[in-house]
């Protein structure tokens, strides 16, 4: 990177960043790149809020009977952590930031198909997020992010309806973003960009968008019904009103399991880009990875009741959902094996984004394999609702989705800002995050198998050793998140200019300047084969 020549005319070139500095030009922008930056600020704020709640929870769990926070407060903290992290960080994270920024750039378009709707999505997201935060300031919600009935609809005395309204509104943001991506990918590809030349990040974003559009309305309906029962006493879920509490779980997981794939599919897309760029190889099994994304999106709709094996459904229902859950593991495994084959005989450079990508593969493998335990009926009946589940989904969500987001953020940061971050700090942070993450969450597998239930503010003394390890890991993890916040912001002012393609990566987004001009490309690009590293000349770039 140091070898990239400094090109002086970059200072005077018009970019999407310097075209107008007024606040209105940002808040009323229709530029997908600026909207991506707006999202990035917003979700970073939500991540900080959700992360702070996690820090207090980990401190509470340092001792078996801590008096740091009251029982009710602890319950509100994990609810806050779940709601904020799921609905206001993980679901929007990669699609709305990297996706918003990259979808038009990667397919050679000037913007998304509906720029105004894109801005509307952000305002809906902010409105929903603000309502959720108001419910927090008002005193919080104590139902857990899963809002299980009849607790949420009849028994809880907290601000459930306000939080539901927030999630309901933010849901429309997801739907509109998904719609925007689908239309853009269908209609706005540049000349030469056929479906099987699309970057794999676009394939995974496309699969994610399908889930956005099809699953999110079900969540909206479900939460609206909870509000209806809560406000008007219409009996839908509460048996005392003639309702069925299991019906809620079916409806809730019909969204919330596909939502898991909303969180992980874009991460898989990012990793496919990073692995190829930093091993300088054509991706192995392009069609298989692309189709694996689509099959995950489709199969993901058919596995929801694996959250309910012991909830009171029939054992035969359990068997159907168990086998389907195993099936959805197969396309994930295919992806991992294809990434490994891509590394084979590559030219591997362990720069920061690559460290995150390799970390993703390792942690996602652990998360995926422990998912098999949970899909197994005979094991789930022991570990369900314990810390085993917590550990499993944090390996997927944090070890997977957040690692991919961090990797993608570092990879495309020079494209977004035109600046390079300090590489040494990047690598150190990636390693700290990896180690801190494992120390935090690996002991929770053991805790869960021993039987420690989730959502407990106090626990039996024999669980303490693992909890101390977990809390220690969380403090390392916190450092790993604070460091990038520091040096990435630092790079905005003091980082060296990046040039158009600092990593010598393939892909249309690297063919335009960094940061890109307002209309993305000086001339409409013409797409060739993707990942054509074997045809690139690394000596003359």
């Amino acid at each position, binding site marked *: 990177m140091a*070898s990239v020549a400094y090109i002086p005319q970059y200072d005077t070139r018009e970019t999407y960043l310097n075209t107008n500095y007024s606040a209105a030009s940002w808040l009323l922008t229709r530029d997908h790149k600026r909207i991506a930056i707006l999202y990035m600020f917003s979700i970073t704020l939500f991540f900080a809020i959700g992360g702070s709640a996690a820090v207090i929870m980990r401190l509470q769990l340092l001792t078996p009977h801590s008096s740091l926070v009251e*029982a009710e407060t602890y*319950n509100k903290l994990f609810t806050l952590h779940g709601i904020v992290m799921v609905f206001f960080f993980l679901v929007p994270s990669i699609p709305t930031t990297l996706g918003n920024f990259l979808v038009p750039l990667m397919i050679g378009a000037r913007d998304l198909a509906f720029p105004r709707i894109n801005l509307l999505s952000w305002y809906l997201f902010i409105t929903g997020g603000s309502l959720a935060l108001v419910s927090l300031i008002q005193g919080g919600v*104590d139902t857990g992010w899963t809002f*299980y009935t009849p*607790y949420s609809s009849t028994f809880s005395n907290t601000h459930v309806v306000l939080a539901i309204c927030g999630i309901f509104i933010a849901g429309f943001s997801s739907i509109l973003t998904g719609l925007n991506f689908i239309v853009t990918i269908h209609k706005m590809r540049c000349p030469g960009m056929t479906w099987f030349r699309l970057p794999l990040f676009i394939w995974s974003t496309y699969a994610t968008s399908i889930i956005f559009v099809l699953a999110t309305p079900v969540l909206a309906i479900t939460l609206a019904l909870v509000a209806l029962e809560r406000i008007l006493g219409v009996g839908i879920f509460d*048996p005392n009103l003639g309702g069925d*509490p*299991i019906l809620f779980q079916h409806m809730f997981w019909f969204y919330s399991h596909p939502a898991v794939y909303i969180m992980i599919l874009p991460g898989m897309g990012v990793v496919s880009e990073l692995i190829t760029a930093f091993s*300088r*190889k054509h991706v192995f*099994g*392009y*069609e*298989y990875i692309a189709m694996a994304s689509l099959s995950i999106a489709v199969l993901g709709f058919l596995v929801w009741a694996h959250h309910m094996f*012991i*909830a*009171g*459904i029939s*054992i035969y229902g359990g068997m159907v959902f*168990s086998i389907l859950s*195993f*099936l959805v593991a197969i396309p994930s495994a*295919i992806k991992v094996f294809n990434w*490994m*084959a891509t*590394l*084979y*005989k*590559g*030219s*591997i450079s*362990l720069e920061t984004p690559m460290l995150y990508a390799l970390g993703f*593969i390792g942690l996602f*493998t*652990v998360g995926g*394999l422990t998912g*098999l*335990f949970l*899909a*197994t*009926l*005979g*094991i789930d*009946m*022991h570990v369900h*609702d314990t810390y085993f589940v917590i550990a499993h989904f944090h390996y997927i969500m944090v070890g997977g989705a957040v690692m991919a987001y961090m990797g993608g953020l570092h990879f495309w940061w020079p494209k977004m800002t035109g600046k390079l971050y300090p590489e040494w700090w990047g690598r150190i942070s990636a390693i700290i995050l990896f180690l801190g993450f494992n120390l935090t969450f690996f002991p929770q597998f053991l805790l869960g*198998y*021993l*039987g420690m239930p989730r*959502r*407990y503010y*106090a626990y*039996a003394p*024999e669980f303490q*050793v693992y909890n101390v390890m977990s809390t220690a890991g969380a403090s390392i993890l916190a450092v790993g998140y604070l460091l990038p916040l520091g040096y990435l912001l630092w790079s905005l002012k003091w980082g060296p200019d990046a040039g158009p393609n600092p990593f010598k990566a393939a892909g249309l987004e690297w063919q335009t300047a960094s940061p890109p001009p307002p209309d993305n490309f000086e001339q409409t690009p013409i797409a060739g084969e993707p990942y054509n*590293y*074997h045809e*690139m000349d*690394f000596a003359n770039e």
Partner: protein
Amino acid sequence: MDTTFRLFPQQASQGAVAVDHLVLFELGVSVFFIVLIFGLIAYFAIRYRRRSPTEKPPYIPGSNALEITWTLIPLLITVVMFGWGAKVFVDAHTAPDNAMEIFVIGKQWMWKIQHPEGRREINTLHVPLGQPIKLVMTSQDVIHDFSIPDFRVKQDVLPGMYTTEWFVPTRVGEYHLFCDQYCGAKHGEMGGTVVVCEPADYERWLAGDLTAEPPALAGKKLFTLYGCNTCHGQYGPTLAGLYGHSVDIIDDHGVRRTVVADEAYLRESIIYPDAKLVYGYPNRMPSFKSTLSEEQILDLIEYIKSLGGAAETSPYVGPPIGAATQPTDAEPKITNPPFANYRTNQ
């Protein structure tokens, strides 16, 4: 209770060993793949590290043979996991006929437990060693979950329906009992202890409370107290021999069909009498939904069971006028198939 640090939970039930074997199998598979993936990452990162900035690796777009291989192998492994897991799960949900039934009622934030002989306890469950135990569970408010990690059993406990869980305790000792489904403020303290004792000690413990009243007897008193006896067996359908037999009913859609009079049917008929009306009888019975607690409903069901039931072979039909059967305090006979009785997990 043994609260020392350990890696693996104790194996204190017949099902614990089966679950642990399955876990060890999947752990073996997982360790293999984790070592494989982490090992390959480390090996490739070193073996194929970039040696010069202009290095250009070979073009390898893919291989159908490899793709099929690494699709089929995981598929086969997961099919084994599914089958084995389903076997363990079905075994864990098929209680033997001689299982002793204990009633469990969850409420925010305690477990109320009723033994068949009448002894009741809260947040502690005494069980005799080696005796199959079947818990029949319901909730008075929100969803709870009855989990005994050292027995490897867990089942949600829901309002408005009965769920079951069974085990054979195989080790004398005290074990944790947790509520595993979040149920509100004191969820973190909703739990207690399962005490496994020698059968003789269990008998001694049962006899410890001389005021204990068997549920069937308590139910009989309720039956008189609420005036049930003024209709049932006279103007209304008799309850003798009802339990476990099919009943000719008109449901709330006006459809005439037969249902089996199990616990769920009896409970529903007590709180929603018009949901399944015995054919040929008018809807005269008031709802006892807000009158009776879940415990009292269970007492009444035990009383109805004690009136005889599945042992008789003739299907139950409406009684001839004036043929009221006298209730007896006979031993309840439970010969119904293990999972035909509840709406759930069967």
